């Protein structure tokens, strides 16, 4: 019996693979699937709704109205002399993007078990499609932010965009990577231990209060000098602060903090991908 040389095989299935075998090439081949999944999510979102894609706008608009009422008017939390709705919107769209990526990714195995259990494709496609779908949504909401900024600018509010605004793509990358990375870690763990899924449900909304969505960092440092490091070293804080600083001219911007945030994000993302790749091979048996 003649043995075919090893390199002639297209697919080799073995129990364990290298920790860093991320099958990037495989994933690239399925890029059309990625786009189709994004399209599916987008289309399925507003099928059989009357308002359709307008829901993408309504959600943040209502959120900032409530925030404005509660945190600004009732609680009197200052907004760094930025018009309150604009201040909240900048934080909210960033935070929403992060939390959507995180929560959706964290249940990716559970939600798609039926599909993933039947057919093979690089599993990384699923979380990537989540991040991209949410990016579409984010883009719509960001347009709203730009419109609102322009509106306040014409009204004569002191809004001073500066060169830090060019960091915008980096900020998006960071927030997406962080949501994706954390989500993948959680998704991997929850295939066996469901408990963490419950932590995510109530934990993520609470986590919002440890970032500067509804208050400026400067205010937190002033009021709680001893504990403000929790907020400062939350990797999402520098991202939101940089966005506000770049587009609105107010906020705490430092290369150090942003670099720190990028470092943490890279570590979490790598960790997420590695754990995810390890679990995806057998999750069908345990999910």
């Amino acid at each position, binding site marked *: 019996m003649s043995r075919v040389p090893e390199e*002639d*095989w297209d697919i080799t299935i073995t*129990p364990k693979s290298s920790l860093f075998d991320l099958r990037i090439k495989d994933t690239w081949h399925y890029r*059309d699937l990625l786009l189709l999944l994004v399209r599916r999510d987008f*289309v399925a979102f507003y099928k059989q709704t009357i308002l359709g894609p307008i829901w993408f706008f309504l959600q943040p608009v209502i959120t900032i109205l409530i925030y404005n009422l509660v945190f600004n008017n009732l609680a009197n939390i200052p907004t760094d002399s930025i018009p309150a709705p604009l201040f909240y919107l900048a934080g909210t769209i960033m935070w929403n993007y992060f939390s959507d990526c995180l929560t959706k990714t964290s249940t990716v195995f559970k939600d798609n078990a039926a599909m993933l259990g039947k*057919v093979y494709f690089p599993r990384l496609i699923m979380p990537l499609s989540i991040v991209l779908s949410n990016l579409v949504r984010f883009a719509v909401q960001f347009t709203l932010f730009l419109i609102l900024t322009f509106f306040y600018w014409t009204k004569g509010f002191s809004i001073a965009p500066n060169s830090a605004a060019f960091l915008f793509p980096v900020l998006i990358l960071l927030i997406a990577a962080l949501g994706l990375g954390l989500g993948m870690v959680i998704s991997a763990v929850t295939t066996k231990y469901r408990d963490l899924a419950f932590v995510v449900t109530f934990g993520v909304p609470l986590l919002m209060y440890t970032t500067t969505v509804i208050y400026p960092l400067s205010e937190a440092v002033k009021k709680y000098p001893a504990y403000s490091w929790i907020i400062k070293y939350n990797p999402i804080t520098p991202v939101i602060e940089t966005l506000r600083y770049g587009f609105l001219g107010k906020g705490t911007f430092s290369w150090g903090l942003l670099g720190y945030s990028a470092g943490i994000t890279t570590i979490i993302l790598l960790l997420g991908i590695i754990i995810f790749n390890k679990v995806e091979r057998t999750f069908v048996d345990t999910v």
Partner: protein
Amino acid sequence: MAKAIVVEKLSKAYQLGDFGTGTISRDLERFWARVRGKEDPFLKIGEVNDRTTKGGSDIVWSLNDLNFDVEQGDAVGIIGRNGAGKSTLLKILSRVTSPTTGSVKIKGRIASLLEVGTGFHPELTGKENIYLNGAILGMRKAEIKRKFDEIVSFAGVERYVDTPVKRYSSGMYVRLAFAVAAHLESEILIVDEVLAVGDAEFQKKCIGKMGDVSRGEGRTILFVSHNMDSVRSLCNKGLVLNNGEIIFNGDVNEAVQTYSIKRFKSSTTTTGNIPLSDSTVIQLFQIDNLPAVTHKDLEFTLIIKSSEINTTSSLVLLILDEYEQRLAVADLRNSDLFRISSTQNTYEVKGKLKHLPFLPGIYQFGLYIQSHAVSGNFYNLLQFEVLQKPREEDILPYDLSVRGKIEIDHTFVIK
């Protein structure tokens, strides 16, 4: 011929009971074991493929040390009882899950039809789903575009292509899904009992398509089914699994027979030395030309021996089905029987059942004897399986349950 798939020492272990489903005590136990530096009890056993632990632990080896090759262009039927490991094998081959030990090497692209309509989104239209499903199966967008019309017309859903699939009938749903997979340019196609759905016309189309696929284009097919008829009509090779092990690998007819014999452990096609009375035994009773196939002749030999002259007045071959219902008899009386049984201690009957009119299934032979030394019915002397006759056209036989009791040999002309 080149090999398409090589499976080496493939095993897959599953944990019985409550593995990681969230019972706190168990999770804590496993977590605690790890904290103390002990190995996860599950993985510890999983690493050594030790069969002796099978009974004692709550590990079950769904596949146990499989070794086999599949040649390019072969259509292999994988058969076995429920729990034999068929689906696990297909899951590993289609990379849905990983093996515990061993390896599989595959040449070419694999399309698996483990369950049709995977990834179909009910809200999306047929068209959107064709693209999505095709992409899930590994097709590029351009490839789907090229084959789109062909897929739609194969599925016969032209009118519904812009309707959300949630409004499809289940038959349409399945047809569309099969059509997408069947048009995937893959070297290897894995099919798990999908043909059970769909009407006869569509089944015929699928068989035709799969036939093209395996003969014309040199595609390799792995086909799992409990329907022996479809396995026999589609496949040229058979792989019989039992309790996670291969018990037969080779020609499909032999495989089907091996499986049937395994299924009906008592199957005997030759027997001897069966005492009928104190003085009389069946020295030999056997079917001479196996396998028994519908509409083929079945030959048998019967030798009855007595210690004294045993004048026989009645000898009848009884044919019963697997539920011991008498289906037919073959009268074996003639003047020779009377003469020989009255002059000799032993006589031999060689007979032939012409154009066996039975459906595929399990049957048994019995005897009715009326003689000087013995008289009565003797059941269950031989058991054998009648196999489906070879397919003449690309038409899948109807299900056995609707084919009545006998198989009529017939011809017809359509003008």
